[in-house]
C-alpha cells in the first residue's frame, strides 16, 4: 500500500517504460506510416518522462534540458518524417509501410 500511495521515481520510470513499450509495439506492428511516426513520438515522450523524473530525483536541471532538446529533435523528426511521407504518398498513392520497399531487390 505504501509503495502504491507514495509516488517515487520508480513509478514514473514504470510509466515511461509502459509508454515506451506501447511505442515499440506500434512501430513494429502497424502498417500505416502515420501511426508508426506517432508511435515514435510515444517512444520519445517515454524517454522524456524518464529524463524529467531523473532530473527531479537528483535535484538538477540537466534532465529537463535534455528533455527540451529531445522535444526539439522530435519536431525536426516529425517535419522530415512527414515530408518523406508526403513524397512517398505522391509516388505510391498509399501510406502503407509494407510498400516502402524500393530498395529491396
Amino acid at each position, binding site marked *: 500500500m505504501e509503495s502504491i500511495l507514495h509516488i517515487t521515481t520508480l513509478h514514473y520510470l514504470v510509466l515511461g517504460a509502459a509508454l515506451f513499450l506501447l511505442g515499440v509495439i506500434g512501430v513494429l506492428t502497424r502498417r500505416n506510416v502515420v501511426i508508426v511516426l506517432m508511435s515514435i513520438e510515444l517512444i520519445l515522450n517515454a524517454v522524456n518522462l524518464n529524463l524529467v523524473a531523473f532530473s527531479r530525483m537528483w535535484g538538477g536541471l540537466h534532465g529537463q534540458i535534455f528533455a527540451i532538446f529531445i522535444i526539439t529533435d522530435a519536431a525536426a523528426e516529425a517535419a522530415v518524417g512527414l515530408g518523406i511521407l*508526403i513524397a512517398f*504518398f*505522391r509516388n505510391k*498513392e498509399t501510406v502503407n509501410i509494407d510498400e516502402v520497399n524500393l530498395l529491396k531487390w
Partner: protein
Amino acid sequence: MTDPNSSLSNLDLETPEKPFLDANELVINMGPQHPATHGVLRVILRLDGEKVLGLECVIGYLHRGVEKIGEHRTYTMFNPYVDRMDYVAAVSNGLGYCETVEKLLNVEAPPRAQHVRVILTELNRIASHQLWLGTHALDIGAITPLFYTFRDREEILKIYEKYCGARLTTHAFRIGGLQYETYTGFEQEVKNFLQFFRPKIDEYEELLTTNRIWVERTKNVGIISGKDCIALGVTGPVLRASGVKWDLRKAQPYANYKNFDFDIPIGENGDTYDRYLVRMAEMRQSVRIIQQAVEALPEGPIMAKVPKVMKPAAGEVYHSIEAPKGELGYFIVSDGSTQPYRVRVRPPSFVNLQALDVMCRGQLVADVIAVIGTLDIVLGEVDR
C-alpha cells in the same frame, strides 16, 4: 477589331492545369445555395488545394421560360415580363423591349418621352451599379459599403415609386412612349438626387478605392484581355475594363443618347480593380447624362401614335441597348399577328457568365467569389 475566331488561341479551355500535389483534386459544389453566388448559380469547382483548376457553371435554377411566354402574349402584354429578367435594372429591360417593338412598328417616341426614358434608365444604371458595389464589396468581405449603397439607392427607388408606383419591377415605359406624365416636381427631385449623390460616390471611393486590402484583393484578379472578351461576346463594363472602348450608347446611339455629352470610361488591365473603377466612373457619367437630360427636358406629348391593337408587319428586328450589365439585345420575329412569333433575348449576364471559367483558371477560391461579384450577374437574367 480582330477576327473573333482566332482570338481564343491563347486560351486553353480543355486541358486543366497540372496539380501541384498529386493528391486527389477536390471538387466543390458552390451553390446553388451559397451566399456569394448572387442567387441560384451553381458553380462546380475543381480545386487543387485552394487553386482553381477549372470550373463549370450550372444554370437554370431560375428558368421561367420568359421567351416562350412572349410567344403567347400580345406585344403590350409582354412588356411587364421583361422587367422580371434583370430585376435590378428593370427600366433598362423595358427600354430595350419598347424600342425594339417601336422599331418593328416604325414609330418613334416623342422627344419628351425620350428624355424621361434616358433619365429613368440612367438612374437605373446608377441603382444597378450601387447594388453591384454593395454586394461585390460584401463578397470581398467589406460589409459596410452595402449599407451605404442601399441607403442611397433608396432615393432612386423613391423617384420610381413616385413616378409609376413601383419600386423594383417598374414597367415604366410603354411601346411608343410613356403612359404617365412626370409628376409635379419630378425635375427638381431628380436634380436634388444628383446633388445628393455626387458626394456619395466620393464616399464609396473613400471606403474602397485606396483601401490597401481592397486593392490587393482586386488587382490582378480575374484578368481577361479585350480579345478574349470579344471572342466570348462579353460586353458592358467588363469589356470596357479590358480596354475596349465599346459602348452602344455611342456606337449605335439609341433613344437620344447622341444629344448628350459623356465619356466612355475604360480600364487598362481588365482585372477586377479596373472593372470596379470603370463602374464607379460610369456612375459619374450617368450623373452627367441625367443632369443634361433633366435640364433640357422638352415639353410636348409623351406618347407617339400607336395603334390600339398592334399588328406589326411580318418581319424580324434585332435591337440592342447598353444595359448596366452590357449589351441587352432583343430579337423579335413578327408574323403579322398580334403576338410575336418568336422573342429572343440576348441578356448580358448570361453571355458574360461564360467568361467566368477563363477568368478564374489558376486563381484561388476567394478570387472566384470576387470574379462572380465583378461580373455583376443577375440570375433572373441568366436563366430567364
